[in-house]
């Protein structure tokens, strides 16, 4: 177990293109760090630099207090799970898992003991003598994890390990990985482009964009106090809505009526002509269903609903709105960068599943204005970010983590059985 520190890491390819650009990141011992971002943001490259499969152009990579820039992968004592598992097809599951031990010239009886331990944890016991070709996708995935946990590595590295599984299995494996990491308490770096994985697994999440770190924070901080337009748009599903707004005193004029800001936020946005207001879908509600007590903290507006989607436990409504050309172009660029293709300017609002709002009709909505963020459309900066509140969220998350780790160390023997049988929390993503 070890911490991983990156100092001003740069990866430049032959043509001068910086895939990773001046990344500094500290990962604490035992922490679960997620690297997330749209495709081409450099997250996989960064992971491969940690493990040593990619050369570092400049900067320092320090693992467990030792600079490892010039060490070969085998000397870094890290274990990695690849996106396509990279199992050795000519070996049985047992030999696959035992491979790192065999290379380390471990005595036979110890190899057997360790492999059996690992296969117990991953419930692979009855498959040990089979070849990878005869296993299902989920089983192969578990073999790959077995190979990673069988030796005492300094850290685990995961490169989009679940992207080849179907949605249901992915949900199960996600909880499995989380449980395993808590139980073993090993530093973990996990690359994904799936934000559900990022939000549910990570102690902290590092959002990358074009090789640069945008924000490193706990999932809650990312969600509630995003540092800029990119992070705000990337985290959350359905994504945050961005509405054009013009400030007028303490109020913001938006296509969905006026939004009132408190003193502090009003001061922060002063001096701009055109702004973007970021409102999460769940800050909206069908006005007829809002509690009277809550009503005053928000504003109401009328709008025509384009489409509604009823999902049983929740309901989404799509409301088109007009935006100036400059904003429209910028939102299109943003959505393209986030790997989605937004064709029209529309807000996605989450309303109660019991709401009777119908498609094509006008309806009254309520909007909770307490948590809206205001962005500068030119720089993308979040003008109303409360850094202290954000830091507090991350601090709390860190406390939780340390507590959990202590618990799991104290009771790791006692709750062994419980850990193994607890599969009921699995959810599809």
């Amino acid at each position: 177990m070890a911490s991983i520190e990156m100092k001003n890491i740069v990866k430049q390819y032959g043509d001068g293109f910086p895939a990773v650009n001046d990344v500094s990141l500290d990962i604490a011992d035992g922490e679960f760090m997620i690297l997330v971002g749209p495709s081409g943001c450099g997250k996989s490259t960064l992971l491969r630099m940690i493990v040593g499969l990619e050369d570092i152009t400049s900067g320092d990579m320090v693992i467990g207090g030792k600079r490892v820039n010039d060490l070969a992968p085998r000397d870094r004592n890290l274990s990695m799970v690849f996106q396509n598992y990279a199992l050795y097809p000519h070996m049985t599951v047992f030999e696959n898992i035992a491979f790192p031990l065999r290379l380390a010239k471990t005595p036979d009886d110890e190899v057997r003991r360790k492999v059996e331990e690992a296969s117990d944890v991953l419930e692979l016991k009855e498959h040990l003598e089979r070849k990878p070709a005869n296993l299902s996708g989920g089983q192969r995935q578990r073999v790959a994890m077995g190979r990673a946990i069988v030796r005492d590595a300094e850290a685990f590295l995961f490169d989009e390990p679940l992207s080849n599984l179907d949605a249901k299995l992915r949900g199960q494996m996600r909880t499995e990985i989380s449980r395993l990491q808590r139980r073993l308490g090993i530093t973990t770096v996990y690359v994904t482009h799936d934000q559900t994985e990022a939000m549910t697994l990570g102690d902290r999440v590092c959002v990358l964009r074009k090789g640069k770190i945008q924000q490193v924070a706990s999932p809650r901080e990312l969600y509630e106090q995003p540092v800029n337009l990119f992070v705000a748009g990337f985290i959350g599903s359905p994504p945050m809505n961005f509405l054009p707004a013009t400030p007028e005193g303490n109020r913001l004029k938006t296509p969905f009526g006026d939004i009132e800001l408190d003193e502090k936020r009003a001061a922060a946005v002063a001096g701009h002509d055109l702004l973007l207001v970021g409102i999460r879908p769940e800050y909206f509600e069908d006005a007829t269903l809002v509690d009277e007590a809550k009503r005053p903290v928000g504003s109401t507006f009328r709008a025509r609903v384009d489409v509604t989607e009823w999902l049983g436990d929740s309901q989404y409504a799509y409301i088109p709105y007009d935006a100036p050309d400059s904003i429209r172009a910028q939102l299109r660029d943003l959505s393209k960068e986030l790997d989605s293709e937004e064709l029209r300017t529309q807000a996605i609002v989450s309303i109660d599943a019991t709401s009777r709002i119908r498609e094509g009709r006008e309806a009254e909505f309520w909007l909770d204005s307490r948590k809206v963020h205001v962005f500068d459309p030119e720089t993308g900066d979040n003008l109303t970010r409360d850094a202290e509140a954000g830091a507090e969220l991350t601090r709390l998350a860190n406390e939780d983590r340390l507590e959990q780790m202590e618990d799991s160390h104290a009771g790791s023997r006692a709750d062994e059985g419980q850990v193994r049988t607890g599969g009921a929390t699995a959810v599809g993503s």
Partner: protein
Amino acid sequence: MSTRKKVLWGIGAAVIVVYCLFPIAWIVSVSLKAPSDLSNESFLPSQVTWENYELILTGSASDLFLPALRNSFGICLIATAISCLLAMFAAYAIARLDFPGKKLILSTALAVAIFPVISIVTPLFNLWRNIGLYDTWPGLVIPYLSLTLPISIWTMSAFFREIPWEMEQAAQVDGATTWQAFRKVIVPLAAPGVFTTAIIAFFIAWNDFIYGISLTSTEAARPVPAALGLFTGASQFEEPTGAISAAAVIVTIPVVVLVLLFQRRIVAGLTNGAVKG
């Protein structure tokens, strides 16, 4: 497929099989004929005789044939082994590394492969006599390498390219040196490719006649194809056709055995299950 189509396909296949195998059947039949029976104007011998086989294995022609058989086996196996080993390293480098001159190596290999053998033989004959390689095993192994290496490199680099990079990287992360990753992961995965290449290389060397006849003079190194050409009949009025046929049949046997032995290994698809399928 309709019945008619099936019948047509069957007939077509039968025609091709007969066309291909008829010469072999003929040789087998000739090898079983007595010298006097050779011109009996029928496909089958009027009486089956093992006379020709006795002649080459224990009789007067055995002095010529048996050492040649030993030479052929020895030289071809050595040439195949060396060329497979060298081709394995070369192909691995070509498939995995990005180095200047990669294209040059591949195109040179191809150029060597299509270079006519007959144009090299005469200078080689002189050179070999001067440096003492004439009529020795190395004197044949070296030219055979020039025949087998190019095709081996081409075949094997195709096989190596199909092995996912991640296999090797996973091995390295697991603690393997580059050499260990190559030996424990890549080579076993490339085994079908290696066997295929080995068989092709062996055939090429086994079938060579020009080098065999030009670069040897005694039984010290003369391979079978060359020895066959030197067979003589029992008297100068007799054609050694029967003996040659018998020798040809015997020479074909190892080739058939090789293919039967390794055909399962040649079937690719060993990488199934390595990555998500």
